[in-house]
């Protein structure tokens, strides 16, 4: 029989938060947003580098849609999902999610068509172009196209 122990450990965080001084919650959120703005440019460059890294990885003749290569694509797509969304690049973040959906289960049963990844790369690059970035309808259309690609590829994989 499993022995269950229930207890209340000290919550140092609770005590720290209640110390006198500090800032209001509203001010803390404002300051955090300002801190983020300070690294926006650097993070935008990093996002472009991640998209370029996926492109370089998948354009090589030696790319394998199984194993480490596809895992690397998945990790980069996950980073794009996480980091673009913080800066309100919603569609780019969702494109990262779509690529995660596409590659997350790849390599287990069947090889993934690399063209589906390249479509995502092209879409991500277009979302970073000013004329697309500034047009909500175009961004939505790009994202919808990606969703269709992912759904189609996933259905094909499921059929095998």
């Amino acid at each position, binding site marked *: 029989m499993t022995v*269950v122990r229930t207890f*209340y450990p000290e*919550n140092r965080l609770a005590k720290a938060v209640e110390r006198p001084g500090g800032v209001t*919650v509203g001010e*803390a959120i404002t*300051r955090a947003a300002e801190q983020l703005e300070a690294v926006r440019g*650097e993070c935008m460059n990093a996002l472009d580098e991640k998209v370029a890294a996926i492109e370089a990885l998948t354009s090589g003749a030696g790319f394998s849609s199984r194993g480490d290569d596809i895992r690397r694509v998945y990790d980069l797509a996950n980073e794009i999902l*996480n980091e673009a969304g913080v800066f309100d690049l919603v569609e780019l973040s969702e494109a990262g999610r779509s690529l*995660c959906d596409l590659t997350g289960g790849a390599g287990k049963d069947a090889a993934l068509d690399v063209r589906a990844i390249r479509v995502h790369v092209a879409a991500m690059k277009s979302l970073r172009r000013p004329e697309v970035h500034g047009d909500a309808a175009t961004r939505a259309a790009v994202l919808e196209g990606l969703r269709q690609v992912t759904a189609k590829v996933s259905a094909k994989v499921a059929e095998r």
Partner: protein
Amino acid sequence: MSAGVDPKRWINLERVSIMLLEQSDHGCKISSQILRGFGIRDIHTPRTLNEARALTCHSQLDLIIADPTALNGAGMDFLRWLRRAEGNANRFAPLILVSGHSTMTAVMLSRDAGANFFVAKPFTPKVLLERIMFVARDKRPYVEAGQYVGPDRRWKGDGPPDGTPGRRGGDKRSEIDDVSASSEILNRAFAR
């Protein structure tokens, strides 16, 4: 969030010590910037499993924020290790898991690793601060039972089903206490 944080409320995170485990350099930079904006100065960002373990042995941490994919994919293993590391001063430190592309299975694994809360990425500063404040106010007891060590996973404080006596002496009998608000928050976190 309904049990949310009043924007006029004063908080002091200046002396809070945090371990931040992030997947990438820029993910780490983004989260660090947000935490600095909250006034937190003592932010530890180990990049390897050994560094993370050593830090828990030599520092007193008030909060851990971790992406399970951090530490080259060993983030979850580290968290499981920490919750079971007898004698470690940070064994029961509040733990917020943050993750981007997550399946429900991954969320459940996070919960079973002993996390206090799961936050879906990408998150805004407001969401992260609300979750930190929630964990600071979390009154759930911790439980050590077989393979599980961490906060009580029962979020609803509304006691056993009607007409049943319950299995534990500590089960509530009737009214729903304010923990039910936490359940709502958790459900929304899962739904994102």
